[in-house]
């Protein structure tokens, strides 16, 4: 199984480990991530304006390249996944955006949203299967109580992201169970961490994350996992000292490839 892969800017810099653990884990699980050539930053947030075209082109280029290669496109960072998936939806369903974006792109065949965008977790759930993952675990994380932090970007808007039930997701809980650990369900797991507000108003993000972490802690979580570098950054700024890991780190640990991932 081979997929096109879009790492995104933060995975080349502050979140190198999120990427490295994912690549090593993919190998252990029997699929290959082939990084797109010359990919460009997705911009971090989806441009909401109906007249925004130029700011969507980096995503369109990535999507069109995967189409050319005849591969599905795998993402890892929640923000990149959100942006690429929504731009792809625009290219499928919004004629004005499709026409104008293709006018810029000048491809031999216009791009019309043909590429399937998959989050790394969707590859595990839908292509590998959690049962299969469980079989490949060599270091089960027995006894660990882990809270899944979904945040916003993987889930909402549910009709476009189609990742999981946006109000009561279970993807990460199933993932945690497959690794041999115990998922802790708490009410704030799909509440916003503050996102980009932490740049200019860190106190606002801090108080939102304090609520999230206290909720998780109160329900017995010893740690949180997330797919998003910005969520992780915000969640680690609270006064609780609740450890927050990328889900790929625990995955690599359970699959016994953590050491070699960072080589």
């Amino acid at each position: 199984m081979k997929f096109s892969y879009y790492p995104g800017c933060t995975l080349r810099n502050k979140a190198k480990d999120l990427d490295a653990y994912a690549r090593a884990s993919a190998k252990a699980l029997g699929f290959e991530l082939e990084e797109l050539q010359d990919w460009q930053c997705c911009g971090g947030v989806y441009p909401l304006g109906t007249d925004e075209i130029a700011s969507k082109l980096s995503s369109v280029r990535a999507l069109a390249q995967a189409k050319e290669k005849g591969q599905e496109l795998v993402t890892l960072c929640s923000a990149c996944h959100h942006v690429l998936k929504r731009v792809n939806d625009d290219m499928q369903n919004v004629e004005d955006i499709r026409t104008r974006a293709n006018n810029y792109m000048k491809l031999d065949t216009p791009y019309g949203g043909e590429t399937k965008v998959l989050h790394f977790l969707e590859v595990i759930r839908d292509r590998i299967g959690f049962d299969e993952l469980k079989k490949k675990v060599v270091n089960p994380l027995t006894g660990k109580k882990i809270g899944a932090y979904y945040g916003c970007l993987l889930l909402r808007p549910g009709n476009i992201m189609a990742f999981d039930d946006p109000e009561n997701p279970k993807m990460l809980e199933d993932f945690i169970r497959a690794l041999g650990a115990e998922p802790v369900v708490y009410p704030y797991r799909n509440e916003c961490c503050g996102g980009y507000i932490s740049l200019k108003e860190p106190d606002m993000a801090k108080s939102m994350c304090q609520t999230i972490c206290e909720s998780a802690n109160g329900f017995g979580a010893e740690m949180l996992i997330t797919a998003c570098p910005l969520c992780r950054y915000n969640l680690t700024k609270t006064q609780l000292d609740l450890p927050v890991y990328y889900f790929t780190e625990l995955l690599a640990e359970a699959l016994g490839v953590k050491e070699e991932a960072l080589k």
Partner: protein
Amino acid sequence: MSHQNNQAEMIKEISGVNPYKCMKCGKCTATCPAFDEMDIKPHQFVSYVQSGNVQALAESKSLWKCLSCFACVERCPRDVQPGRIIDAARQIVVRQRGGNYLTADEIPALLDEELPQQLLVSAYRRYKR
């Protein structure tokens, strides 16, 4: 057409939202994680566009408090998408000369060792042109 009405039309066009679909149930405000910080609340956004009082919206603190978490978009029973309205109002402001809410000069003082690139690009896209 007055300048204000013109701007109200621009907000409708940029957001793609029909404010007349709103039935004022208030679910958007009830679910907004930033509602405490906002002077104009999410359920009020539509009224400002309907009445053409866009200047007040453009000057509101709410523009810079919205987190783009899409809770209001997800939970609106009428698919009005208040988050798109406030984004359109923000666009109208930052697309004007001198309207940026964040400038490159401010960045160095805001950085710390762990700050992810994603935070900078996201803030740039929402706050700046």
